[in-house]
């Protein structure tokens, strides 16, 4: 019944450094999610905290997040997500949107 929290620590194959500025993107609407992304010294790693009503998809979440980290080579960054039943494609889109906005700021 209670919300499901998933915490992951991921490490990019090659570290390209953190995002520039703390950024918030999105609204926890139906089939959507919001992302907080901010630079933080995590010894080259990326820390992800995800809160979602959905259970049973932890492995899929990890694959999507790993794909995002591989595509961006992000390191030393904290990511927090509030999800409301978003599909993997939407999750990846929002992560990239947050990444772009955080580096444009």
């Amino acid at each position, binding site marked *: 019944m*209670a919300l499901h929290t998933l915490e992951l620590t991921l490490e990019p194959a090659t570290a390209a450094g953190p995002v520039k500025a703390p950024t918030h993107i999105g609204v926890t609407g139906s089939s959507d999610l919001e992302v907080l992304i901010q630079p933080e010294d995590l010894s080259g790693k990326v820390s992800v905290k995800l809160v979602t009503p959905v259970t049973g998809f932890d492995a899929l979440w990890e694959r999507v997040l790993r794909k995002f980290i591989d595509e961006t080579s992000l390191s030393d960054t904290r990511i927090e997500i509030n999800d409301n*039943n978003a599909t993997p494609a939407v999750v990846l889109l929002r992560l990239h949107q947050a990444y772009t906005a955080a580096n444009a700021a």
Partner: protein
Amino acid sequence: MTNWQNLQPRSFLEASARDRAIGLVDEGSFTELAGPFDRVTSPHLELLGDAVAFDDGIVTGIGRIGKTPVFVISQEGKFIGGSVGEIGGAKMVNTIKTAIDFHDDLVAKYPDLTDEEKPVVVISFETGGVRLHEANAGLLAHAEVMDQLQKARGKVPVIAVIGSKVGGFGGMGFVAAATDAIIMSEFGRLGLTGPEVIEQEMGKEEFDASDRALVYRTTGGRHKYIMGDANFLVQDTVEAFRKQVAELAPLPVADFEAMRRIGSPEKVENQLRLVALAAEMQPKDAVDVWAKAGNENAAGLLDVPFAEFMSTVKRLSV
């Protein structure tokens, strides 16, 4: 952060709560308070296993229009219909309270402050009212917002802007009605019981909530403007809303008293005359009342372009 210049010509209807908050005040002047990075999420939703939001669906902060400090509250309809729970309610209450305290401090410190240098509150409504998941806390929050509106009265003008998808309904419909001035676009909707709820309770014969034309001519901006429930009707752009707020912001607080729809014996008399008119007319449709207000081609008012509507419409006075 969204580019302020790009935001101005954009549709207010489609703008997110945060974009509205940023775009309603001067460029670069908005500072969010209790924002997403403070991570104040609803404890009730968490217990129920429902998705939470870092800002609980309400953006609060302070900006500036010209010389006027503007305290902004902006509701996000995409998060549980913009419903107001304990956290979002507390953010609303404390924003208004902060505006009042700020006003009092400012006036005590600088007694010869001009009207345009005194703060105002702007609330961008997009809500169906109480968040039923946290009903008691949500109701209490509504009462506390009302309380702050009364405390703000005669000191800090409270301006409602309504032009977002969900409209302003339920308990927040009452709150909107209790503000000093209401600015709407023709896509804004304002009411107490929302269309879907009327249909659910009274049946489709009474009110067909899927009939969008009916919904808009009963709760929409054009109707509310004719009825006097809305003080101002503007185009559906962020800029149009900001400019109307900017026109009101420097006015002396006494000027807002005249814009109120409720809140004095005279205004109650006026409302009672409206009730008497409704009882006498037994209108079958909003258009009947528009005709009564002196609009010859009342039904045509639904479809005429905005500029023509504004130049030809006659507003009801009783």
